[in-house]
């Protein structure tokens, strides 16, 4: 289930706050900037994990997301590196193929089905963020 939430003020505020925090962090990034992602937009994706890539320079969640009519769309979601994530409550085995999960992401600006993770709900019910300064939403 995909819910577009740009109108929800609270979420928008959170997204902007995160964007500001990220903007401040940009010069120090290890690999690339966040420019390709729209940090002012938050999208919630609820679906089934097809692959969890615990790799460098980034970790990825590949996920199938059905819409209201059951039509499945596939998304590729980028996370920080294993080093950054393992200090934020993640493990290489946090997600496995077939797991149901709900992700909040900042989508790619170019409209393709990809984005940068803000928050994930793991199968054990914990919500985790995406590295230091990118904790789960309160």
């Amino acid at each position: 289930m995909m819910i577009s939430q740009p109108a929800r003020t609270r979420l928008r505020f959170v997204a902007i706050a995160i964007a500001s925090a990220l903007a401040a962090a940009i010069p120090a990034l290890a690999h690339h900037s966040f420019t390709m992602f729209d940090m002012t937009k938050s999208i919630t994706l609820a679906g089934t994990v097809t692959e969890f890539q615990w790799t460098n320079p980034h970790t990825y969640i590949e996920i199938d997301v059905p819409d209201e009519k059951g039509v499945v769309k596939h998304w590729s979601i980028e996370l920080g590196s294993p080093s950054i994530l393992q200090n934020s409550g993640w493990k290489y085995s946090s997600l496995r193929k077939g797991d149901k999960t709900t992700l909040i992401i900042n989508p790619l600006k170019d409209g393709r089905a990809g984005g940068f993770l803000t928050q994930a709900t793991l199968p054990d019910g914990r919500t985790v963020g995406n590295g230091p300064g990118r904790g789960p939403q309160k």
Partner: protein
Amino acid sequence: MTRRWLTSVALVLLPLAAQAQQAKTPPDLTGVWGPYRGGRGGDPKLAAPPASPLVLKPEYVKPYDERRAAEAAANARGEQLATPGAQCVPYGVPTMMSVAVYPTEIIQTAKQVTIISEAFSEVRRVYMDRPQLKLEDVPPGYYGRSVGRWEGDTLVVDTLGIKPTVAGYRGMPHSSQMHLTERFKLMAPDVLHDQITIEDPVTLEKPMTYTIAYSRSAKDYEMVEFVCDNNREYVDEKGIVRLKVQDH
């Protein structure tokens, strides 16, 4: 009486000898170091002092400014211009000394100080008390050749042989003649500074100096491997960084 006198002399001299010994023993920088976290109420003297201005030779100013302007323009369009880092090319010296939140491990022995950056698993080896080679005898590379010596409690590291294609400090252009002098000093038991002075007779009007401040990481921190074997960022035909998504 004589014995008592000798005992008195020994009591005075022994601590002095111990002090002298202590002065000869350099501080141990071994450990894992992360970016300095002063926090609220932290001692401002422990934070890195501001960098000195970057003063390029006139012929390097325009290309440097143009690249900066192109980066800003791309950023305003919502795009990032290709960088070596985005293509998983290691940073080399000196940029690897401070990469985002990633830690840096220092392993110090009498003969060698080894510096490992977690990001991209980059390694520098500093050979202690060996003479530096002539520039023409060092093959140009990412880490060059580094030799070190102790000046009191400061580890002074001399590096040359960085090839010009290795990204300089904040994109600073440099030649094969770039020469770095680093001064590593413990400012507090758990705070380390690396003061880096860059000299380059080709691109720099005058030397520039900046300092990286580190805080000691948790004592039991274990460095994480970082092999860049799944880089899904690619550079398109316009030189823009894009993300490879899976098509289904």
